[in-house]
């Protein structure tokens, strides 16, 4: 009798372990994408359209990655689930809009819809968003850390900051949507094999990749980058090792915020600017971060690409409005089977 029970326990244990393995999660995600593809094909959607969606999914994944990398670093290094991250992206988009209003309107660059001034605005807005994040940290999170507040209080303060940032955006720019450029519709061009994308989207993808490479170099090659990874690994050990955690925190906000700002600008360029745009991205961002393991910047990139692709491809047969809902489904799958994410160690979180 007890023999039977223990065998069954072992079997359950084994099934659990297999389901919770990295391979199983990746297989599950692959299965999801294939299933979506088949579903779309069954509805008679041409392969070219799906390929175009795939390319756009990679681009959207690039935008999400810009937000998710910073979110993951802040989560890992500071232990703050930064619910204001989406609104920091929004702030980036609007700060760039502000910068544009001071700059002369230049001719469009090549096939793109924007002129050099958007690049200037990008360079201006990114550090400002980083500074915004660091300022909030100095005013709010630092005190909470000093009071040894539990993580949920940090999360709530982040939520409060999110609404504070958004209220400022509403006050300065109103609730209506705006565009960086009006009347400059640029037609989609054919890339190859019938895949059609807009030139701006290629630019967005290129820029996102360039920034991700920069982040990679920073994290792998610079002392501060390594210290950030070390702090994300084990903040207590980082402290006793003599790592200056205050400056690690400062750089984490500056980099995380700067990337979020860039992501917001890219998202605004691809669609339009709205005060709620970042809030809507929050769920996909967290899904990407948890999928790729909290604190792991490369995991966040992988997670963001998966979410971006699934989101876009799902629009072939699903109301596009449900994009964030698709991200939610992935989030729940990850939480069910492997809450530590693709790159996490079992038992760890």
């Amino acid at each position, binding site marked *: 009798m007890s023999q039977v029970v223990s065998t069954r326990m072992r079997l359950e244990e084994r099934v659990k372990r297999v389901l919770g393995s990295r391979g199983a999660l990746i297989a599950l995600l692959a299965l999801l994408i294939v299933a979506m593809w088949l579903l779309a094909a069954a509805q008679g959607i041409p392969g070219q359209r799906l390929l175009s969606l795939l390319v756009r999914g990679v681009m959207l994944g690039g935008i999400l990655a810009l937000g998710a990398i910073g979110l993951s670093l802040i989560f890992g290094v500071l232990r703050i*689930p930064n*619910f204001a991250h989406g609104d920091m992206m929004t702030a980036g988009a609007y700060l760039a809009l502000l910068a544009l209003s001071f700059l002369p309107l230049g001719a469009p660059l090549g096939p793109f819809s924007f002129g050099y001034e958007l690049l200037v605005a990008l360079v201006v807005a990114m550090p400002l968003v980083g500074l915004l994040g660091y300022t909030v940290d100095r005013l*709010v999170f630092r*005190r*909470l850390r000093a*009071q040894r*507040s539990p*993580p*949920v*209080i940090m*999360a*709530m*303060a982040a*939520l*409060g*900051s999110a*609404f*504070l940032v*958004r*209220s*400022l955006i*509403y*006050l300065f720019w*109103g*609730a209506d949507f705006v565009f960086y450029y009006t009347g400059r519709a640029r037609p989609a061009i054919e890339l190859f094999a019938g895949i059609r994308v807009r030139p701006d989207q290629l630019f967005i993808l290129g820029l996102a990749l360039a920034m991700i490479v920069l982040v990679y170099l920073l994290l792998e090659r610079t002392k501060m980058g390594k210290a950030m990874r070390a702090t994300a690994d084990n903040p207590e050990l980082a402290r006793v090792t003599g790592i200056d955690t205050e400056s690690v925190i400062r750089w984490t906000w500056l980099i995380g915020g700067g990337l979020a700002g860039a992501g917001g600008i890219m998202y605004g360029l691809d669609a339009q600017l709205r005060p709620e745009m970042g*809030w*809507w991205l*929050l*769920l996909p961002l*967290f*899904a990407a971060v*948890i999928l790729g393991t909290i604190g792991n910047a490369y995991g966040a990139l992988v997670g963001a690409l998966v979410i971006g692709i699934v989101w876009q491809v799902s629009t072939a047969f699903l*109301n596009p*409005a*449900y994009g*964030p*809902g698709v*991200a*939610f489904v992935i*989030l*729940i799958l990850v*939480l*069910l089977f492997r*809450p530590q994410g693709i790159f996490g160690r079992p038992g760890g*979180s």
Partner: protein
Amino acid sequence: MSDVVLVRSLLLAIPLAFLATRAMPRRLPPAARLVLGVGAGWLAALALVLLVPVGIMAYLVSFAIVGSIYAVIALGLNVQWGYTGLFNIGIAAFFAVGAFTSALFTTTPPTGAAAAFTQQAFGLGAPFLVGVLAAGVAAGVLAAVVGGPTLRLRDDYLAIATIGIAELVRLIFQNERWLANGPQPFRGIPQPLSCLVRDAGCPYLPAPLMELFAPLAPRDYTYVYLAITALFVIVTFLVLERAIRSPWGRLLRAVREEEDAAAMNGKDVARAKLQAFVVGAVIMGIGGALYAHYMVAIDYSHFDPLYATFIIWVMLMLGGSGNNRGAIIGAFVIWGVWTGAAFAVDALRPVLAAISPELPARGPYLRLMLIALLLIFILLFRPKGLIGEERFVSRHTGEREA
């Protein structure tokens, strides 16, 4: 004294008598407290109805209705966060599911020309209380589905998952026309006991009772509805006060304080968390139903994260989490700040216009800023809220426990 004044004051006396009874000195015997409290409450109600101008009174009554609805939802959140420490930032999901469920249960599907404008999955034409019950059940089921996979994980995962469910629920009610009229408002949600204020009367009530309410005109309906919402607040409050002093309540607080110290195994902790999450959601769903029947027409935009989640958090944090009285007070104070700030912003219009011509139209967002700042200040300087957690007197040992 006209009849209508009398009836209004009687309806208003329901919440006031309850408040007065609770305010009576503890050393009086319970029966005396009840008699004195009811008397004082009714006198206060009479004074209000007689002395306050009708227009202002109408405003105060509708203010109190919304305050009561928020109070119910804040009580639900208190079960989750205050007692058990569950961080739910998707209140909107349970609020909305409750509202739409009750609406679907109590309306009848449109026929004829109206069917072209309103679509709904079903309409049962059920009574109000059935709708409320269904709202609670639906929200509770949703909570069980979300809580199952997430409650056994880290606290912050629940927060993220609840954001997700709130967004998903909002998207569904925004996009699925067949379900509850998609992006268009879902109209015609019946008002309970509205027959009291109509000439035809309520056929199911005994004649003497009907006669008592005969002086009421349709514009007096808010008094009736205030009585209804006040009863819901009172019942919810009393039930929760009982529950929190029961062994179950102690279990929840043990879970919140430190799971390991609670000398129980992981399964018990998980079950207690799920129970608290579901019970809280049921109460939120009931709050949603109360909201739907008050508004008569609802749509997805009523359940955005600001009005349906964030503001409720500020209410609970202000009142003091873990304190039912605080949750109710917090709901009324914040709702008062919110509506009062609207007047302040209105008064500031000329100043705002001087700064920028566009600013007066955006004035309402100053309120959002105010509320967000308020939350941050509470977290920084008064993390236990204005009142703080009640200390409980254990019924069995007489000892005070934290």
